């Protein structure tokens, strides 16, 4: 008899009467998610499918997997023990700004940096179209969309594909720090869990030259998330007028380091050449 290799031992398959593929994981059971995940982790970048389009495909998949009643119940329970979250919901602040509103802010301020970024490129201010929130989750997601670009600036993640890792990993750390129910924290982090995987796996598989940039950005994001206050619950709009460092201090953002990852991000996206100077793998 052939000996079973060490790492292959212990497999005890479970049978099922199901006529279609099933498992104990609702995520694995979803064929669209299986297909999407394999694609976004293994593919190369190309102009035929820009990374934002991947998230557009992902949103209805994850929406179909959400148990909204359970999420709302978790929010309600969390609000009983988490006064900061409860106050945030009770205030229910929603932005209604336009790009023109930011022209008033001086260069170098939080609002001024945002204005320069938005008027210098082809960006919409709302990456998710506005819809009046009907539930706590919808409010959470709306505010996450409204604050995402400012989280780039505050956490030190440039507006490029490697810079995207910084706010991703800031949230993956900070939300788990300030939401007491880890199941709710995970539910609120699905976009970050799935979205960030593209920038790690795909980087090593196809763009290893910028892997150090990727790791550095992850570490910077985790540090800001760990060291900072609950930025995702803050009303950033009150700090638009402040110079960036003052805005960070006022909002309790700690440990942010600004690193220019424009060239690395462009190389990753196959929109630019290999940068002349590659970031070294060293302590972030």
């Amino acid at each position, binding site marked *: 008899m052939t000996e079973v290799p*060490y*790492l*292959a*031992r*212990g*497999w005890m*398959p479970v049978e099922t009467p199901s006529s279609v593929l099933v*498992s*104990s*994981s609702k*995520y*694995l059971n979803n064929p669209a*998610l299986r*297909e999407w*995940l*394999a*694609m976004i*982790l*293994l*593919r*190369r970048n190309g*102009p*035929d*499918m*820009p990374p*934002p*389009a991947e998230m*557009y495909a992902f*949103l209805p998949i994850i929406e179909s997997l959400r148990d909204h009643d359970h999420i709302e119940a978790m929010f309600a329970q969390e609000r009983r023990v988490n006064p900061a979250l409860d106050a945030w919901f009770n205030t229910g602040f929603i932005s209604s700004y336009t790009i023109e509103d930011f022209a008033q802010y001086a260069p170098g301020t939080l609002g001024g940096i945002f204005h320069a970024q938005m008027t210098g490129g082809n960006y*919409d201010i709302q*990456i*998710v*179209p506005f819809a009046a929130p009907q539930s706590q989750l919808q409010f959470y997601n709306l505010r996450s969309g409204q604050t995402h670009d400012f989280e780039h600036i505050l956490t030190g993640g440039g507006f490029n594909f490697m810079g995207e890792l910084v706010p991703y990993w800031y949230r*993956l*750390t900070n939300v*788990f*720090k300030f939401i007491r129910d*880890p*199941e709710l*924290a*995970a539910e609120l*982090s699905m976009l970050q*869990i799935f979205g960030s*995987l593209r920038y*790690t*796996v795909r980087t*090593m*598989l*196809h763009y*290893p030259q910028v*892997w*150090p940039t990727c*790791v550095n950005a*992850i*570490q910077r994001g*985790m540090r800001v998330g760990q060291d900072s206050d609950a930025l995702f619950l803050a009303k950033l709009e009150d700090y638009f007028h402040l110079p960036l460092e003052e805005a960070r201090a006022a909002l309790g953002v700690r440990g942010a380091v600004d690193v220019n990852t424009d060239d690395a991000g462009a190389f990753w996206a196959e929109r630019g050449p290999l940068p002349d100077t*590659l970031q*070294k*793998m060293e*302590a972030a």
Partner: protein
Amino acid sequence: MTDPVPYLARGGTAITTESTTLVSSSVYLNEPRLRDWLATAFLRKSGKDSPTTHDAYKLYGILKDVFDIERIEALFTAERKRWPELDAWFAQGFSSRFSVEDLLANPDGSFGHRFGRYIRDNGFEIDIVPRFVPRNQFEYFSLRSGQTHDLEHILTGGGFDILGELVPYFARLSNLPRFLDPELVGLINVGQVLGALRLISRTGLHYHAAFPMALAAMRCGMTVGEQSGPYWMRQFEDAFHLPIDQARAELGIVGAIDLDTSAASLTWTEYA
């Protein structure tokens, strides 16, 4: 005029092909078994029916058909010309031959003794990959990586549990790029990056309470990898008699802290 295409969906233009089977510009995406493996390994729950170690075994079975061995060999050969220490490592071709008894003959508390106790107390085997005679440089690199993996747990500070795996995984992912050509790093680290990130993904999806610990383990691994010398080339076996801190110093391991991931790892059903 407002663009009717939603912001996130803009820019995509489908490219056609004459291929009768699914193809893309990625050799990895083109392998159906890897697509299937990835979905399962990143999305499934943990259970005693299908050990996580078995997933790794299956992954390497798939990757051996994907690896561009010719390119990897050419890059290793070029690196040996650039870096004498790497050349000497290959030329010496050291391979482990120790037994559990050999390990336990080291002083109590030493690096080797601790590893011996781990093997004996759990009924494990020293060779997680069966011993073989390497036929090329990549096979030698892989053989030694298998031989030193468990030892790297101890040296980098990663516990012998599922989340402890993240420490040696991310230590290598942060250490190899400091010393080797980036293209080579990408080619030989596919298993490492997929192996590591599946643990992050599944912890986030299913074992939420352990997620912060998973991230802490990831950070510990990165820190060790960034600060240490090329420990994967060192002959760990020469330091078995030393206390762990001294062994770390001797082998050029810097920045290791012993992270206790044992309780968090129990959230993974197969280990509960």
